């Protein structure tokens, strides 16, 4: 990006640390730019406080986290899916968040664009969660598929300054964003604030603010959630997996179907937070078992159990040795457990 951005009139800066990186992209977004940062391992922990700031101030921005083994310095740079729950709950305090989890390089390309749009549309930081396996992979992308002239613009206010409420409670739940310097002089704070942007400690105002923050996401799940169904149509068994594990799962499904006659399919969340709970409940209905392979000790397993444990059996497969999960491992695990 340091090479490409100046050519397009964009700005790149290498900050002194990841805390500063996260802060500066929020500052840039307040100034009206689409902004992003990227990190791996400890860097995402350093960003957490200011991710919360972006949530409460409803400042659009994109954070790319290419997961590597942890905790701490952990495994630079070997694969892990250890940050799935941190992406949801990494910053302190109750809050909504959007996290997108692509599984191929072309999908990273498409989902990055979608992530920025979601972020601008719902005024929320979006985390693009990647696996190291995909992060270091080279695959073809089709740039022509993207319409370069179609660029998502955030909703900005069109009322006179004195009518402007930076955090108004409108029907969409998403207030218009006034970029700094456009004549709307207002206040942005990490304190809970009322519609006028100033801090409040009044319970009714706090309640209205917090609930709107959740509502703007909860009311738009149709737009935000995305997932892939692979060979699910006639399947008796289901794998729920994300990222590079979903690629191994697809390969394993081919082998299990073609060589062993096992009717199995894959449900792959592309939007991982908010979770695809209604889709899972629907797909789980006619399944004998759900397998949840992941490169951690059961982070995707938790929401899967939460929504589907009363419907069918759920079996985890966990690998945390710094290697990817291979298709043959899934094939033998699933054959042993059906």
């Amino acid at each position, binding site marked *: 990006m340091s090479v490409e951005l*100046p*050519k*397009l*009139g964009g*700005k790149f*800066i290498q*900050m*002194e*640390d990841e*805390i*500063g*990186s996260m*802060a*500066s*992209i*929020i*500052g*840039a*977004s*307040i*100034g*009206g*730019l689409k*902004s992003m940062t990227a990190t791996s391992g400890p860097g995402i922990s350093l960003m957490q*406080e*200011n991710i919360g*700031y972006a949530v409460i101030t409803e400042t659009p921005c994109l954070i790319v986290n290419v997961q590597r083994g942890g905790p701490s310095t952990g495994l630079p740079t070997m694969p892990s899916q250890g940050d799935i729950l941190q992406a949801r709950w990494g910053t302190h305090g109750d809050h909504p968040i959007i996290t997108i989890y692509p599984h191929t390089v072309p999908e990273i390309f498409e989902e990055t664009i979608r992530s920025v749009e979601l972020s601008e549309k719902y005024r929320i930081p979006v985390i693009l969660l990647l696996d190291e396996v995909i992060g270091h992979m080279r695959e073809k992308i089709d740039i022509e598929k993207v319409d370069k002239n179609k660029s998502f613009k955030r909703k900005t206010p069109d009322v006179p300054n004195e009518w402007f409420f930076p955090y108004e409670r409108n029907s969409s739940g998403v207030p218009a964003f006034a970029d*700094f*310097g*456009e*004549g709307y*002089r*207002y*206040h*942005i*704070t*990490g*304190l809970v604030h009322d519609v*006028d942007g*100033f*801090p409040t400690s009044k319970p009714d105002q706090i309640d209205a603010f917090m609930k709107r923050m959740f509502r703007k996401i909860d009311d738009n799940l149709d737009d935000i959630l995305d997932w892939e169904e692979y060979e699910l149509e006639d399947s008796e068994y289901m794998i729920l997996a994300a990222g590079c594990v979903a690629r191994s799962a697809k390969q394993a499904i081919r082998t299990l179907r073609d060589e062993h006659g096992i009717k199995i399919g894959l449900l792959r969340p592309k939007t991982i937070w908010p979770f695809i709970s209604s889709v899972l409940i629907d797909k789980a209905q006619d399944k004998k078992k759900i397998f949840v392979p992941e490169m951690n000790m059961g982070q995707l397993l938790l929401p899967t159990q939460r929504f589907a444990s009363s419907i069918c059996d759920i079996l985890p497969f966990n690998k945390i040795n710094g290697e990817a999960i291979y298709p043959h491992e899934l094939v033998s695990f699933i054959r042993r457990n059906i």
Partner: protein
Amino acid sequence: MEKNVVHKYLRKNKKFPHIWCPGCGHGVIMSSMLRAIDKQGLDRDDVAVVSGIGCSSRTPTYVDFNTIHTTHGRALAFATGLKLAKPDMTVIVVMGDGDAVGIGGNHFIHAARRNMDLKVIVYNNNIYGMTGGQASPTTPSGKKATTARYGNIERSFDICELAKATGAVYVARSTSYHVQALEKYIHRSLSKKGFTVVEAMTHCPTTYGRLNKIKEPVAGMIYQKDHFIMKAAWDKLPEEKREGKFPMGEFVDIEKTDFVSKYLRLIEANKE
């Protein structure tokens, strides 16, 4: 027509009173800043005031500009992003001493090194006032804080020396007693391009003052009057007479190209 020039820049829709304790020097610094902005003739729409966390960092709440109250210590990093997005905006960063050179010390030295065109005003009350009077990096050795009840055994930072060493183009110190000098230095910093630092010494009657026997606000002002000496006089002072006294005035005033100007040139040279 406002009788007082400061009123022109205060937010009419903000609920006063402010959160500062009676006798606190922070209001003096804020009004000096507002008079300096007025003197500089800046359009309110083209001014941003960014702060971190702490007593001083509530300043943006009260002033009618584009204002951001950020996270503790990180104001300069937020301001860096904003300045890159809005190169023509005057970005003023107000921080406390703990905010600027404690938790935010790393951002301070790097924003100075980079020469980001940010106008820093540090409200230095020698203590973490809002959180209950803990020792800050500028609490003088021997002075008391709630986390240094037997007297601070650490050395304290000289913010002006730090700013000078890390590359600020303008560095000055005044106090909430020396109001005219303070306004003059802030005004001078606003007229310069690059990373500028004005350290404004202020008294905290509630925590620092109470623990160090200068709890009366007037005593705090007299302390500043007696202990801060203009640089020219300070330079002539023999070493033994400098004990317990501090220099004030303008310490650095140089020209250097700032980061954003350089980056805009880089874009110009490489654009497709």
